[in-house]
């Protein structure tokens, strides 16, 4: 077997993995990354100088305790849940998780339609700015008693609408001008950030502020921190909203004709066209839906976390790409994937506070975990694109009923050297 065959067979196996196998792969990946990260911590600790070694290793001593670091990383994310179930560390974890659910869903839905939306960040910025400005302008006209009931839905709606419109732009460019969405969405990220900066600094800046930011939205429009203490910036309502969107999106993709069109386009555009799907319209609507989800994320960020629009928008859109890949682009997988990010964010803060490990090294450990977990899914994506596990029929007609289902994938991969589409007579 040549090297190419081996690689193709491995990719095909990965593509064919069941979700349980994928879950086990993720767990194994975390374990591996802990081993690798632990060695790095240990070795760095040996090179560092400190008053009192934290860890002894058959003689040589290390300033950092590799086991303690990981214990802190995961325990710090949940805090002292038994003593205080609503502690700030858990709040931080859940806040990050909630924010990333929106952008993770955004990237995932585009992926399902066969589109690589790198532009969730820009769509989030567009949604966030629209939300902040709408709420600021509408607030004086809304009676105080109705403030929360009107302003919060209005803000979320405007976030969705403007994020959606901003997502529809690269969709339309792809559908009608054949412009690759990867390139256009990357460029539109810059456009969104710069236009938002210009608008806010020139027209909407808060009068007394030195930085580029709008005025603070009125208290009625803020998504209050419930259950978790004030200052946690985490509203359970948002978490519920995120979960509802996950469920809604799953339903949309799996149970509706629109979702069927979208998934079919993503998997096999030719077959979708044959089945009566309008490919151009599907590209635009998928991108608009993707953008709307990112826009809601922007709205939530403004109403729950920042309380205003500032030019310093966190990179939730970009993290959403990783979250979506970790989730295998499945809406249901977005929640655990976002949770992993939340845990790492909150946990690494705890590591910095509780141990002597510098934050740069903690960043390395976080990166390792994400890298290790993402790699199998990443290769699955590549595999889906380049390895077509069973384009060749398994058996001639009248094949045995059950065997046909269980034939090893390796036997079905393309013969070596053949390019996709360069089958018999190139037709």
């Amino acid at each position: 077997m040549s090297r190419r065959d081996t690689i193709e067979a491995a990719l095909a196996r990965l593509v064919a993995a069941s979700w349980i196998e994928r879950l086990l792969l993720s767990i194994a990946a975390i374990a591996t990354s802990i081993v690798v990260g632990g060695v790095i911590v240990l070795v760095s600790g040996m090179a560092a100088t400190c008053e009192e070694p934290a860890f002894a290793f058959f003689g040589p001593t290390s300033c950092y305790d590799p086991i303690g670091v990981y214990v802190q990383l995961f325990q710090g994310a949940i805090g002292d849940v038994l003593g205080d179930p609503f502690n700030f560390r858990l709040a931080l974890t859940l806040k990050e998780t909630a924010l990333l659910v929106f952008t993770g869903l955004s990237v995932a839905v585009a992926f399902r339609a066969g589109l690589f939306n790198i532009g969730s960040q820009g769509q989030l910025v567009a949604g966030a700015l629209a939300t902040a400005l709408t709420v600021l302008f509408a607030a004086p006209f809304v009676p105080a008693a109705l403030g929360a009931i009107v302003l919060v839905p209005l803000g979320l709606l405007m976030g969705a609408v403007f994020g959606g419109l901003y997502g529809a732009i690269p969709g339309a460019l792809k559908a009608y001008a054949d412009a690759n969405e990867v390139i256009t969405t990357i460029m539109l990220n810059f456009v969104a950030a710069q236009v938002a900066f210009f608008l806010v600094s020139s027209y909407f800046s808060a009068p007394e502020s030195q930085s580029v930011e709008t005025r603070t939205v009125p208290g009625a429009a803020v998504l209050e921190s419930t259950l978790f203490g004030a200052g946690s910036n985490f509203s359970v309502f948002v978490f519920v909203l995120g979960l509802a969107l996950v469920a809604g999106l799953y339903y949309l993709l799996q149970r509706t004709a629109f979702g069927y069109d979208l998934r079919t386009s993503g998997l096999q555009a030719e077959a979708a066209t044959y089945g009566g799907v309008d490919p151009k319209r599907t590209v635009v609507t998928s991108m608009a839906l993707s953008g709307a989800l990112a826009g809601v994320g922007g709205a939530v960020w403004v109403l729950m976390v920042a309380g205003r629009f500032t030019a310093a928008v966190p990179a939730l859109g970009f993290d959403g790409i990783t979250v979506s890949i970790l989730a295998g682009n499945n809406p249901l997988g977005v929640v655990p994937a976002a949770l992993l990010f939340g845990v790492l964010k909150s946990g690494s803060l705890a590591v910095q506070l509780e141990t002597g490990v510098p934050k740069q090294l903690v960043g390395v450990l976080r990166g390792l975990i994400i890298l290790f977990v993402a790699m199998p899914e990443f290769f699955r994506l590549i595999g889906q694109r380049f390895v077509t596990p069973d384009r060749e029929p398994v058996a001639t007609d009248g094949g045995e009923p059950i065997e046909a289902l269980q034939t090893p994938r390796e036997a079905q991969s393309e013969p070596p050297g053949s390019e996709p589409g360069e089958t018999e007579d190139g037709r």
Partner: protein
Amino acid sequence: MTNAVELREITKRFPGVIANDDVSLAVEPGTVHALLGENGAGKSTLMNVLYGLYEPDSGTIELDGQSRTFDSPRDAIDAGIGMIHQHFMLVPPMSVAENVVLGHEPKKWGGLATDRERASNAVDELAERYGFAADPDAAVEDISVGEQQRVEILKALYRGAEVLILDEPTGVLTPQEVEDLFSVFEDLTAEGKTLVFITHKLGEAMEAADEITVLRDGVNVGTVAADATSREELAEMMVGREGGLDVDAVPADPGAPVLSVDGVSVSDEHGGEHVTDTGFSVREGEIFGIGGVDGNGQAELVEAITGLRTPDSGTVGLGDEEITRVSRGGHIERGMAYIPEDRQERGLVMEFDLTENGMLGSQHIPPLGGGRIDWNGARDHAADVIEAYDVRPPAPAARAGSLSGGNQQKFVVGREFERDPDVVVATHPTRGVDVGSQEFIHNRLLELRDSGVAVVLVSANLTEVRGLADRLAVMHDGGFVDVVDPDNVTEEELGLLMAGERPEERERADVTADGGGGTRDESPGDGTDAGQRSTEGER
């Protein structure tokens, strides 16, 4: 005399298919050898074996009497074999000279840089020797397709090829470029090169080749000298005869016209015309067959009818409504079922299970489709199709990609037939299907006809179209050569028609269902236009 190429008893299997079954091929040096056959006959596979892309399961390769084994194309290139693929392997922004020497660049400065001057000179010299006009400094993206093909040939010659394999070299060329290519063939053989070219066009094989080998279903049917054969003989060899079709067809009892196609022309984005001013109509309870050698415009005509492609001119009507510009989805809603030629690209989503695939096309149509899809109903529907059409494994949860080709086909056929259609457009409905299921599909097709469905049946299998069709159009070079009564036509006549020649004295069935009177400019009464145009095209 030792043969330049000698393939002995080559067998190459892919999972589920024998692409080449004990195929032998001998090519004399300094000659042009055509490998003729329909799509899927195994021509490209055989040549890929010779080029080292595939390793044969058994059989031997000899070049100039010496036994060879190739692990990769590199070995084959080193042994003096060059292959020009149908889709060129050129780098568009780079110059002709750079493309020719790519991978074997003359070096200067101790191998640090390409010696452009020497490359350019080498290309000039080669071009002159073989009588090509080529500007070595022109960018490949700026030159015509015919010139690009010559760059590919130069590339192979530069690498020292003695045997050149050309895969469907005329597929992308204009008629004038084809002529030029064939004169290049002569120059090359005059210099002692040996050429093997793959084609499914028998006219080209007869014109350009010294010898012709016909492959059918992976088997070498025979090798004939080009000047000692006829078009009819070649057409028969290509299409072959399978035993008679066993169907108990009651004579058709056609009703009102349902599908009417009028003056349809289809061309691709490069301007090549695939269908020229073609029209017909199909009545309720009638099977209209379209036969002919693959690649004569059947696929494009079907795409225009089914809404996958908008024709350049002409109209398609369904009932009283014109549907020329109606979307693909609109065609499905109006009751048109369509069995596509390519089940793995179009007919099925390979990653979906059969339940999901059963909904392809009906996802927006109640009762199962619509806003929300009734997946329980869809599963039952898939199970019904699976049972009725004997799809194995009989599991709605089986992934389409895990099924064998024949079972995939049965599922597609079943799904489309059970749509309760008014019109069925079936292209190669029994391709790759076992004999028992073929018979079932044929009978089901006749049942549909008898229940008043209008059927368009496109098949390269002559026995099938002859046995089933009530009227049979033979397509050649983008148009109907003739429309005949399949019960009153001999095999020889069909062979001639498929080659684009129309015996003048033969009686014709009507092109249009209602007797053809005056609905088209080219009415059947005087209608030799199509035939004449086609034969002219050949000369």
